[in-house]
């Protein structure tokens, strides 16, 4: 199974507060992706499209994939929207991976798109909460930040994780984002700024949270045996896995870990015949800083409870044990929900081909992992890639 599907092109719009609408964002991502195919690709070769989106705010809830594809000239191909909360385009990728594996298709488009900043702030808050447990969490007054804060408090209590470790995730990811022209945030920040920012939900401040971003991302996938006709340096998908969990945090056995991540990671390493120590770089789901720390542990990069220590010691930086979120992550590159998962793969594609901006290129990276979560952990996708 491993390595039978290849990525031959990848592109994305800028992530951020953008004036463009979904059509324009999608077109930017698609054409950058098409142009990245080294030996060129005729768009008519694309047989089917898998478009991840939440349709945030309810805009174009139906027929989104048809609209996106027809307006870039991919008329009349089968297209569908894949919705799976913040992991939508990672599941679009997984569906495309299945389709190529089946042998029914040769070339497909995987994309993601989200327009979030058009909404007024109270509607944004509402839509940000729709992936939580509506009846029993939200009606008690939970927020997205509140749920991650509940995880953070317990993690700090059980493992002695320091507030500074959480803040350091933000500092690191902002620093990498400042070297990524596509990132929402373009400036480095200081640890004190995180600690002193307005409180969202104790202990998390505004700078522990990802921003609300617009954006689109696109990938062109082929069956592996066809990849070399498009590029001499394809990126191979070595594993695709997913897992679900209880929506409500209070229904999970242990809120200091995300079982969906633990399960999906295990399956991904099994498929790829790799151990966590062999992964050179990872784009992981840091919607809130505690998310990165817990994922470091759940993905097996460090032992349980050590995520904070690893972060403070710089072991998750370029040159450390594993380079994490060199794009800036959701935290600083931005988090346009449906575009996020495929956007993580855009970074992997660049890194494994040594095409990232110099200041954040992981030298000689051969194996990469993406980790994308929906809600507070009810949906998880893990993918592993190689040169």
């Amino acid at each position, binding site marked *: 199974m491993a390595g039978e599907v290849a990525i031959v092109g990848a592109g994305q719009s800028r992530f951020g507060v953008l004036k463009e609408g979904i059509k324009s964002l999608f077109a930017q991502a698609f054409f950058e992706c098409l142009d990245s195919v080294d030996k060129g690709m005729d768009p008519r070769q694309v047989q089917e499209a898998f478009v991840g989106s939440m349709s945030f705010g309810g805009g174009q809830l139906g027929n989104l994939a048809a609209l996106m594809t027809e307006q870039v000239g991919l008329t009349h191909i089968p297209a569908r929207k894949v919705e799976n909360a913040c992991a939508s385009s990672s599941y679009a990728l997984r569906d495309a991976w299945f389709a190529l594996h089946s042998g029914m298709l040769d070339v497909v488009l995987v994309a993601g798109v989200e327009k979030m900043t058009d909404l007024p702030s109270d509607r944004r*808050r509402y839509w940000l909460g729709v992936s939580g447990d509506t009846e029993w969490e939200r009606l*008690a*007054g939970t*927020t997205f930040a*509140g749920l991650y804060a509940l995880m953070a408090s317990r993690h700090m*209590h059980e493992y002695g994780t320091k507030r500074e470790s959480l803040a350091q995730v933000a500092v690191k990811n902002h620093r990498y984002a400042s070297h990524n022209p596509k990132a929402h945030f373009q400036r480095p920040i200081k640890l004190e700024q995180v600690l002193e920012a307005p*409180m969202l*939900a104790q202990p998390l401040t505004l700078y522990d949270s990802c921003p609300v971003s617009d954006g689109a991302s696109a990938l062109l996938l082929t069956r592996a045996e066809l990849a070399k006709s498009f590029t001499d340096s394809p990126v191979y998908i070595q594993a695709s896995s997913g897992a679900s969990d209880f929506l409500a945090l209070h229904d999970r056995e242990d*809120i200091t870990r995300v079982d969906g991540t633990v399960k999906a990671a295990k399956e991904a390493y099994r498929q790829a015949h790799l151990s966590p120590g062999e992964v050179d770089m990872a784009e992981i789901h840091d919607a809130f800083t505690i998310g990165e720390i817990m994922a470091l542990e759940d993905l097996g990069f460090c032992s349980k409870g050590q995520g904070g220590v690893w972060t403070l010691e710089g072991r998750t930086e370029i040159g450390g044990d594993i380079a994490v979120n060199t794009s800036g992550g959701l935290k600083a590159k931005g988090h346009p929900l449906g575009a996020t998962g495929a956007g993580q793969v855009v970074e992997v594609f660049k890194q494994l081909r040594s095409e990232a901006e110099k200041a954040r290129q992981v030298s000689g990276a051969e194996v990469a992992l993406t980790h994308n979560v929906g809600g507070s952990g009810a949906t998880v996708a893990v993918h592993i890639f190689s040169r």
Partner: protein
Amino acid sequence: MAIPRFWREIDSRYNLVGTRCGNCGDIDFPPRSVCPKCGRKSLGKMERLQLSGHGTVVSYTVVHDAPSGFEAIRPYSLAIIELEEGARLTSQVIDCDPAEIGIGMPVEAVFRKLGEEGESGIIHYGYKFRPSGKAPPMEGQD
């Protein structure tokens, strides 16, 4: 939240009624119609169970950036509470300074106003929790 939905959940929200699986004995709150562990073996065997309303704090936070309908009460304390019967739920913790709340703190359920429906102005009531021993728990409950 629409009225029919609230009506459907009213027993649990007002009286803290959960379920016990007749097959494995697991206790759930909010109530479930199927036990996640037992699947079809639990069908028709999920018994209603009145919970005591006594529990301890598993984790907590103080929400400053509140969703609509909750702005008036911010900042407010929110906790995951493990009831003495074993089930866990999410609830606000009231009648104490947020700084007093800690993991492991004993709490008890009380009946309070939860929030107001934005557009129609309907007021919802239900459970909140407070530090144990401040007054009789869950007024109106036998």
